[in-house]
Every structure is written in structure tokens, then in C-alpha cells.
């Protein structure tokens, strides 16, 4: 066990590539660690990824506990959970963060169950703050914010008497800091304590779809909603995106209708985006959609209904028909470009 308090991040890797969410979590862990006077550490499992792990230092990770075992090259539930449990038992971090990916959501509950500790799923905001309960004051409680009830409420969860407190965090939500290449993490290789009997799942085949679009890194997004479902209007929205060099995104109805692939969906069950500019075309702004785009720097909403909820979070509102508004936008752009 380290003599310094630790905020630990589970480092997700697939085919030796570190998951983007793990970098986001290291940055977020850094913000939490500052308030706790703690340091940021990682726990990683795999084989032949030492160099990649050292580079986590660019984002502020001090030390990575790395269980190097060829059998851990690919994720499966039991051996991953077991290995992380032993590292946590050894290091006793205050907080452990996982990405709310399929991997994180598969293993974190198993780990929490083994350690009998608190786990909050799918957090969108984390803080260190006060928590009072039955006359007892916890000054540096780990406050975990998450949407619940289909996004209709925001709950703040604490587990003040749990060691550690754990959370899974949505990908794309936490701000990535600018990397500093002069810093590297110390990678400590840990003994694997797994036997072959621990490997209960055999992975026969992994099928990955190429993403047709990567919205999470897009700086300009033009999003089409149900108000742009007819072919002519959708073509116009697409044209606007191409003209101004934006990525095309969509609300769920367009994806459900098969007009665009799921990679294009923004929202609770799609991608979380935070571009410089988000142009919502014919999107009413239901909570599940807003959840994925409300952090955008600038939001332009175009909608024929002046009462559409999207106008309440937009910075610029244009009340009008897409078929009239978009051609004017394209013309104005071309005139000056």
C-alpha cells in the first residue's frame, strides 16, 4: 500500500490500444486527486503494453499497476475482475473509476460485489464535497452525479463509509486535458495470481464494426431530427454539413427509421458530444437527446415550433421551416467563403 492517498483509474485497452475514456478518466481523477491531496494511479491488465501505459503520464497518471499476463490480452469478466480486486486490496485507493463501456459495466459490479463497496453507474459529474449524515460530517466525500429515471432526475450518490468508493463514468463526458509529453508514468509490473480455472469464458470471435463517423471528436456538428426525416429535407441538412465542414449527426427517430447508422446518434443511448458548434435541425430537444449535446460550446436550434424545448438550451434560435432556413444558411456561407 502506498503512503499517499490514491485515486485509481481502470485502464481499458483493446488490441493494445488504450481506450479514450481511460484518458478522460485520468484527467478527471487528477481534478479529484487535487482536492484530496492524492495521486492518480492506473490499474491495467494485458500483455506487451508497457510503453502505452508509460504514456499515460502525459495526462497526469503517476503510477500504473500493470498485471502482465498473456491470458489477459483480451477482456473476459472473471479474470479481469479478480485481478483488479487484488490490486485494489493491495493499494487501497480511496476512489476507483471505470469507463461506463461494456467492459467497465461488466467488471465493475463484480469487483464492487467482491469488495462489498459502493458503486455508482454511469456518472456524468464527479465532485469532492461535504456530506452530512446522522450528525456525522464527511468533509471530503466523493459525490457522484448521475441521471436516473430515464434522465428525468439527477441523483447525487455517496458511499462515505465504503472503501473504496467506485463509479463508472460515461465516455465523452469528462474533459480531456492537453497532454504534457514531458511526463511519463511509472509502470510497476505486478504478479498475476490467476490460474487457468479462472478463465471461464472462451472468446471465439470478436467482430468490430468500423465507425462510420466519430462524433466524439467533431468540432462542428449538424444534427438532423424527426423534422428532417423526409428525403428532401435530410438532403438539405446533409448539404449544410458538407458546406460548412461539419459531421452529420441525428436524433434517435432518424436512426430508428434506418436513415442514418447508430454511430450518428447523439444522446443518452448514443454518443455524447461537446463540439464548438452544434446545429440542431428539426430536433425538439427531449431530455434523452439533450443529455448528449448540452455541453456543446454553441448551439443553434432551427425549429418551426417556437415552444420546442431545444430553444431553452440553445444560444441562437431560429424559428422557421428547415426548407426555408437552411438554403439561406448555405447561401450566406458560400457568399463569404
Amino acid at each position, binding site marked *: 500500500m502506498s503512503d499517499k492517498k490514491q485515486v485509481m483509474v481502470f485502464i481499458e485497452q483493446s488490441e493494445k490500444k488504450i481506450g479514450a475514456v481511460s484518458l478522460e478518466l485520468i484527467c478527471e481523477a487528477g481534478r479529484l486527486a487535487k482536492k484530496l491531496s492524492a495521486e492518480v494511479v492506473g490499474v491495467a491488465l494485458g500483455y506487451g503494453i508497457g510503453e502505452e501505459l508509460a504514456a499515460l503520464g502525459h495526462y497526469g497518471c503517476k503510477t500504473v499497476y500493470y498485471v502482465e499476463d498473456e491470458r489477459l490480452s483480451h477482456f473476459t*469478466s472473471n479474470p479481469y475482475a479478480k485481478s483488479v480486486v487484488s490490486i485494489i486490496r493491495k493499494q487501497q485507493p480511496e476512489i476507483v473509476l471505470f469507463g461506463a463501456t*461494456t*467492459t467497465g*459495466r*461488466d*467488471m465493475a*459490479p*463484480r469487483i*464492487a*460485489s467482491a469488495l*462489498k463497496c*459502493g*458503486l455508482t*453507474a*454511469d456518472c456524468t459529474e464527479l465532485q469532492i464535497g461535504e456530506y452530512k449524515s446522522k450528525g456525522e460530517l464527511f468533509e471530503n466525500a466523493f*459525490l457522484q452525479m448521475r441521471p*436516473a*429515471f*430515464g434522465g*428525468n*432526475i*439527477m*441523483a*447525487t*450518490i*455517496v*458511499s*462515505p*463509509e*465504503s472503501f473504496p468508493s467506485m463509479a463508472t463514468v460515461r465516455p465523452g463526458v469528462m474533459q480531456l486535458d492537453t497532454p504534457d509529453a514531458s511526463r511519463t508514468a511509472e509502470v510497476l509490473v505486478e504478479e498475476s495470481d490467476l490460474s487457468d480455472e479462472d478463465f*471461464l*469464458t*472462451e472468446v*471465439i*470471435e*470478436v*467482430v*468490430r464494426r468500423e465507425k462510420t463517423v466519430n462524433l466524439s471528436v467533431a468540432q*462542428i456538428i449538424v444534427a438532423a431530427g424527426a423534422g428532417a426525416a423526409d428525403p428532401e429535407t435530410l438532403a438539405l441538412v446533409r448539404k449544410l454539413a458538407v458546406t*460548412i465542414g*461539419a459531421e452529420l449527426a441525428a436524433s434517435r427517430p432518424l436512426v430508428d427509421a434506418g436513415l442514418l447508422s447508430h454511430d450518428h446518434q447523439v444522446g443518452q443511448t448514443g454518443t455524447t458530444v461537446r463540439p*464548438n*458548434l452544434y446545429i440542431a435541425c428539426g430536433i425538439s430537444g427531449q431530455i434523452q437527446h439533450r443529455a448528449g449535446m448540452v455541453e456543446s460550446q454553441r448551439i*443553434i436550434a432551427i425549429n418551426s415550433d417556437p415552444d420546442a424545448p431545444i430553444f*431553452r*438550451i*440553445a*444560444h441562437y*434560435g*431560429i*424559428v422557421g*421551416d428547415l426548407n*426555408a432556413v437552411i438554403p*439561406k*444558411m448555405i*447561401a*450566406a*456561407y458560400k*457568399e*463569404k467563403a
Partner: protein
Amino acid sequence: MGLKMIVMVKQVPDTHNITGEAMKADGTVNRARLPAIINPEDLNALEEAIRIKERIGGHITAITMGPQKAVQVLKECLYRGADDVILISDRKFAGADTLATAYTLKFAVDKIGSFDLILCGRQAIDGDTAQVGPQVAEKLGINQITSLLEVVEIDEEEITAKHAITDGYELVKSKMPLLLTVTSEANEPRSPSAKLVMAYKNIDQEVNGDSYEEAYMQADDSSLIDRITEWNADSIGVDSTICGLQGSPTKVKKIENVVLAVNDIQQIPATEAGITDLMHELMDDHII
């Protein structure tokens, strides 16, 4: 012989179909007014169990932890083809987080005895945590396959299945015993069978001609009652320090209704001049 299967189901408020009824004047949701339903993906879990039973034979026990009224979701399971159902209900279970819930379910599963397969929905729509399934698997010391998309092959020893990963799927194989969490993509759940609804109704009336709930509370010798068992904390032997609020490491500090913060919105007239000004401003600021 076939497989001994346990399906874990949960009664949840219907957060997906929020009607005006349940909406308060301030635009927030009145949770108490939401209708109680069986968690949608739990129906997918039940459906998958029924299909496995149809394929290789077996026995399906549906269990739920919840208040007395949660017997309603067990009825839903009987109507679709569960062989028997168990309500796990006790005041001591109130306020349970996922860890305490998993403990309670583990003790119930232990009391059921042997099993090959446990199925549950990937996640429940009230919390969307997806935690209870894997936590039960860990407590029982068994393997898990989460986010099931398709059972490709299954026999009494082994299952080969597709499950979702973030950017695609994996084909995996595991021996029994095993816990599966099932997604809505796995299947299309069947509707209640009219034949089963009628059959249970007739038995119900034969027993004492009373309402279903009361019949289930009283008699103990009809075939309907045979199929609905009720257990409490004592009968499954769960200690009150590990279930309910006491056994829950997580506490809810605060709940806020999501209310839209009104931005300082700049209204752009939908005219050529208005739109041209906006576009040119964005270009001057190098945003586009």
C-alpha cells in the same frame, strides 16, 4: 431433463412513457404517478429462457425482490410460461442498493438450490445501472455473459452466445452454471398466452372465488398457489445487516428534478438578413 433456469425480474415505474398525467406543472416528473410495469429487458430474459426451454427442455423459476404488489410481475411471468415464481418480500429489504439487492437474491437462489442458468435483463429502466446481474454472479461465484444478443448453441453443459461490446459483438463460449444479462435486441418477447391467463384465472376462482392477490395471500393447496411462493428475510436466511438500507454502501445524497435552465438565447429572425448575419459572425469568429 433440460436446464434449470432462474429468471430474475423487477417491477419498475414506466419511465419511458411519461404522459401528461405524470408530469407536474413545473415540467418535472411525478414518479409516484408512473404506472408500474415489468422491466422491459426482463421480459427479454424471460423470453430467452422460454426459447431455451422450447429448444432443449427445462424448468423456469421467476423470482423478484420487491413489495407485495410486485407479485403482479410474477403473474406476467406465469402468463408467458414460467413454471413457478417466487416473491421475495420483506420490510427489511427496503432501500436496498444494488449490492444489498444482489445479496438478497443470492440467498434466494441458494434456497432454490441447484440451477444451470440465471437470466435477467441487462438493466432496469428506473436506475439503468446494469449492476445487479454481475453482482449476483459474483456472489454465487459463477461466470457471466452480459448484454446477450443471441444464443447460438446451447446444451446442458455449455453455451455459445453473441454479446454486445461497445463497437461490435463477441462470440463467446462458457460452461454452466452461468448468469446471462439479456438485451432488447436478443428477441421479441411474446405476449401473455390467453390460454395460460384463463387457466390461472379458473384455478384462482376454484380456490375461493376471490381476487388473485387475496387467493395468493391465503390458500396453500391449489396448483396456482403451488406456483407462487413467498419468502422473506428469515426464510432465505439473509442477515439484516447485509440487506436493505443497512446493507447498502451507497446512499442518495440529493435528488434534483431536471429542469431546463433557460439560456440567454439570441433570437435570429428567419430572414435572409438575419441568417446571413449569423453565418458571417460565425465565420468571422472562425467557428466555421
